[in-house]
């Protein structure tokens, strides 16, 4: 034993005697994580969150969330002597007069955009592979909560500098609050401490942005990760991988090294973006005044779909009992997002009801093997993308020489027509891929080598798949449709009535699959002919 080992042993022993950590560490450091690039997407979000905490702390040293009126005296000349709020002036101060301030601001903002994008792709991975199924429904809901909070947190950060663009965003938020029937007006007075824009909103959202929501974030992320830890990570199917084990690398040292290294790479890429690409150039926007507006005012991308929905809403209003209900804001600003997020959060339960599958799942699905879910996912994404595109309709109009009205009508019709179309097309593609899988298992891979037989016939050589590959293509189970019971054998009507009929209908749709090759079919082919 060398001297260094002795010292390390003494220190470890000292700590262990006082904390009892050795047993716990031994167990948990050996915990195994499966290895796949798509399992790193959530990590990107986690690391971006850490970057946000660090860069945000730096910014908070100088940012002054105050609506006090000041005259700008900093080094950016085009705004010299312009009247503005202390919040905007301090954001300019960070940008131009604090060493590294602009870089930090840009890193913070890019990290926020990456954070939301990583959450979105992580969520897509979890959805399309069915990782949300029992027992992980709660973690899915936690994820949806994190996504929603992320949107709110990002929006508040975008609003803080009190520049012309962020003020415009706050104005829209104000309008959406006001669109709530009956008590919206009161709610807006409550939030803004009076009429818009007032003096209290920025200081209030500042503390929500830097303390309240990050605190909730930390708590939810901890719970999110602890559940992953406790329930163990899902894995893609393959030989030796079952519902009862996890195949992968131990946390220490392999996974720790990979994850630790990945953190620095994420930080590096974010810093690279912050260094080379301008983001939110607040000095160009100018200070916020309610009388001003800029063409092409847009939110950050994660709010873009909301803006797109508001932009395409037809001007419907009703006047009831002395109250005006602005459906054109209420519907796209609150009702549709509410329905969408509730639907997303409840999806694990909806799917379990549709398929009647109440079992635990730790092996992931290949998206093609669950055509109904995959098609639903693509349908929802299509809806979001059409809305997002309409959010940038003015820029699309100017940059592609189109008419903004035509883009709006394309979106209005497209948001209704395209998602169902996407559903049908995706489902057909999934079924075709299943057919291809079946073909590959039964007849092997097409090699592209053509051979002429002695009697002149041309055939293509098919290469038999490896046993592992065959297993991977056939290990999944194909659900059966739930038989519809309208009345039992005594002639008593099923009390569930419509619900049972609906469930039977949905489960039949979910069970629509190309039959995977059976063992008997494979045997028959192996013993006999090939072509």
């Amino acid at each position, binding site marked *: 034993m060398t001297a260094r080992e002795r010292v390390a042993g003494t220190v470890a022993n000292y700590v262990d005697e006082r904390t009892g950590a050795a047993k716990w560490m031994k167990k948990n450091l050996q915990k195994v994580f499966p290895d*796949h690039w798509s399992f*790193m997407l959530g990590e990107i979000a986690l690391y971006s969150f850490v970057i946000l905490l660090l860069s945000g702390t730096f910014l908070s040293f100088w940012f002054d969330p105050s609506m006090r009126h000041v005259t700008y005296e900093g080094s950016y000349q085009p705004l010299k002597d312009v009247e503005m709020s202390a919040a905007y002036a301090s954001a300019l101060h960070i940008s131009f007069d604090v060493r590294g301030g602009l870089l930090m601001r*840009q890193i913070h903002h890019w990290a926020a955009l990456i954070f939301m994008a990583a959450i979105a792709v992580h969520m897509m991975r979890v959805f399309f592979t069915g990782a949300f199924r029992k027992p992980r429904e709660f973690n899915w809901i936690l994820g949806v909560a994190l996504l929603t909070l992320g949107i709110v947190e990002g929006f508040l950060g975008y609003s803080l500098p009190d520049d012309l663009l962020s003020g415009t965003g706050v104005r829209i938020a104000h309008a959406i609050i006001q669109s709530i029937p009956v008590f919206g007006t009161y709610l807006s007075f409550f939030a803004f401490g009076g009429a818009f824009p007032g003096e209290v909103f920025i200081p209030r959202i500042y503390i929500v942005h830097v303390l309240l929501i990050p605190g909730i974030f930390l708590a939810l992320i901890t719970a999110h990760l602890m559940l992953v830890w406790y329930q163990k990570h899902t894995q893609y199917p393959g030989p030796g991988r079952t519902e009862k084990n996890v195949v992968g690398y131990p946390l220490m040292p392999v996974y720790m090294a990979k994850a630790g290294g990945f953190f620095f790479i994420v930080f590096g890429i974010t810093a690279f973006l912050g260094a080379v690409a301008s983001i*939110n150039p607040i000095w160009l926007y100018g200070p916020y*005044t309610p009388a*001003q507006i*800029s063409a092409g005012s847009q939110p950050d991308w994660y709010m873009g779909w909301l803006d797109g929905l508001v932009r395409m809403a037809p001007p419907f209003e009703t006047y009831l009992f002395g109250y005006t209900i602005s459906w054109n804001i209420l519907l796209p600003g609150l009702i549709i997002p509410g329905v969408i997020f509730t639907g997303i959060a409840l999806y694990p339960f909806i799917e379990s009801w549709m398929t009647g599958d109440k079992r635990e799942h730790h092996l992931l699905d290949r998206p093609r093997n669950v055509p109904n879910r995959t098609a639903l996912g693509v349908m929802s994404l299509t809806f979001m993308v059409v809305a997002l595109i309409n959010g*940038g309709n003015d820029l699309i*109009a100017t940059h592609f020489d189109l008419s903004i*009205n035509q883009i709006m009508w394309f979106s209005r019709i497209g948001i209704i027509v395209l998602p169902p179309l996407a559903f049908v097309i995706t489902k057909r593609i999934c079924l075709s891929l299943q057919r291809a899988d079946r073909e590959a298992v039964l007849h092997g891979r097409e090699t592209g080598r053509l051979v002429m037989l002695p009697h002149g016939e041309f055939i293509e050589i098919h290469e038999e798949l490896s046993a592992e590959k065959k297993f991977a293509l056939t290990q999944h189970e194909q659900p059966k449709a739930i038989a519809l019971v309208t009345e039992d054998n005594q002639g008593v009507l099923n009390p569930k009535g419509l619900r049972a009929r609906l469930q039977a209908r949905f489960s039949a749709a979910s069970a629509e699959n190309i039959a995977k090759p059976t063992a008997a079919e494979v045997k028959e082919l192996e013993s006999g002919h090939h072509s």
Partner: protein
Amino acid sequence: MRFISKYRKHRFASPLLLLFALFGIGLTFSVASATEAPKTVDAAARSTLIAEGQQIFLKGCSSCHGLNAEGAGVAPSLIGVGAASVDFVVATGRMPMQDMSQQAMRKPPVYNEEEVAALAAYVASLAPGPRAYTNEEIKWERDGNTAEGGELFRNNCAMCHNFAGQGGALTQGKYAPTVMGVEARHIYEALITGPQAMPVFSDKIITPQEKLSIIKWIKSAESEPNLGGAPLGRVGPVTEGLLVWTLGLGLLIGVAVWLTAKAR
């Protein structure tokens, strides 16, 4: 000559002589400097210019605007639009129009400066209207104030032309063009004439001095270095989102694939 020699020692002789001398120098100077002003062409030269302009008009413009610039179904009357309008739309290449779409776009001008001046003189001769300017007359560098111009721009222009003057969309395919790289005189003329979808900003709404401030701010935005790195078009968060989803996420996922790749 006796008169002069008789009074040459008079006590008013020296001051008078000085006055005469000053008057003489002043007169010479005013005559000499007046020749620089382009607007004081004499009547004969002016009528030649108008005649030239009329010839250009008949060849290049009358098929839409009518033989006497009275306008027709497809094009407005030009009587009373003034030289400023002609200088703006012709010298920026907007007229003659490339096609009958929603809006005449900026393109390399068809006519040179002399031809534009002749056309402007002809149209101005039909009825009085705002006069054309030269870049030298627009003394934005001397009389403008950048910060004031920025405030005025955000108040009056940004809602169509975007916060950084990059342009923006209007309804039915019309658009507010970018104000970057536009000559000072054309900005000034656009403000006083309100071409196409743009409103007129008369001198009562925005004083001539304020117009110079706006021009100064535009010129300052034009020459401003990209302080935060690649400007991404200076059009706000849309291009930022695009970059995150392409370059940002592309790099990150690429690294994730690399980190989890099996050693072969």
